[in-house]
């Protein structure tokens, strides 16, 4: 089966420092991989590399259509949440419901808490309908309920043939394949 994301002998250098080299892995449909490692080991850079926002110094990255949830909220702060999400997807209602954001549809983004913003970025990914999800520190600022809802969404996404690459130093719910980056 064709993998949704494949790294082949990838090296990445940031600010003169070699973060990793000779990195090879693949994620196929229904698989989930967690990138772990201490602060500064290059977890977020790996996610951005996978997304195509950074270029690898060496090696090759093949990717299928993907959605990314990272620190950037990518939502207009003055707009109500529902409208702001519609910039990226015409009908985000189901995903908002799945993350418990339904009652916030009309609330302007700038009034949302950091946990609610995290849920909103995850809703953007869940609504995208693409096979590959990239989640950078998905549990940051999420409460227990939020983490549970995210877990359910990930399970459903995997069942429908999707794949998830997440970077986190915390334990994510469910069975994850692990990729540890050394500092």
């Amino acid at each position, binding site marked *: 089966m064709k993998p949704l994301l494949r790294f082949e002998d990838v090296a990445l250098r*940031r600010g003169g420092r070699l973060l990793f080299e000779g990195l090879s892995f693949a994620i196929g449909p229904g698989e989930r991989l967690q990138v772990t490692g201490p602060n500064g080991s290059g977890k977020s850079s790996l996610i951005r590399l996978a997304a*195509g926002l950074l270029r690898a110094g060496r090696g090759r990255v093949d990717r299928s259509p993907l959605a990314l949830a990272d620190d950037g909220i990518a939502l*207009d702060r003055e707009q109500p949440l529902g409208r702001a999400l519609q910039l*990226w997807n015409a009908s985000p209602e189901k995903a908002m419901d799945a993350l418990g954001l339904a009652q916030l549809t009309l609330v302007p983004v700038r009034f949302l808490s950091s946990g609610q913003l995290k849920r909103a970025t995850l809703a953007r990914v869940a609504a995208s309908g693409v096979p590959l999800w990239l989640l950078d520190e998905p549990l940051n600022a999420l409460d227990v309920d939020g983490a549970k809802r995210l877990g359910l969404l990930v399970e459903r996404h995997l069942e429908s043939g999707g794949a998830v690459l997440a970077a986190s130093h915390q334990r994510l719910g469910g069975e994850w394949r692990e990729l540890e980056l050394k500092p």
Partner: protein
Amino acid sequence: MIGALILRDARRGLAGAAWLPIAFFLLVATLVPFAIGPDARLLGRIGPGMLWVAALTAALLPIERLIEPDRADGILDQLLLHGVADETIAVAKIVAHWLTFGPLLFVAAFPAAALLHIDGQALARLLVSIWIGTPALAALAVAVAALTAGLPRSGSIACLLLLPIAVPLLIFAASFGAVGNNQAIALETAISILLLAGAPFVAGAAIRAART
């Protein structure tokens, strides 16, 4: 997507302080007679040039809000992931920025011309030079905003970068406005087209380079 992007940016610009550059423009037009004196002939002669200086500086005001907020919030990253090229983003931003200040400046030129005793013919020339010149100002502003996005005190750096490049535009636009020199309007148009054609590529490359 580009239409939605233009609409979004234009709406954001107008919902924000769209009146600020225009108020600034009119404020300069109000101050000039106090500084120069009420000599109507003198005012009429320097008026178009003064208004062009005012228009140029007014276009600088929103420069920090053009690219940086979208870069910081990751909107530029998400646009790339949605298959929108950085140059396309730049074009959308230029069009949207022009929409928020070009037409308003055009309207504000009427009261400003009255304040400076600019006669009907000179006003007509001024309006033509504004139509031709403001798209180039918008393009320059977006390109410079992209080049300085993420830098500390980017506003002042942006001014220093933009003003020298805007000088040729200013020379020919003001020259046409003041004395009706037809070669000047041809040259203003040429420079305007050059800036409009080049700015999306400069801005696109700058957005790409700022992505770390």
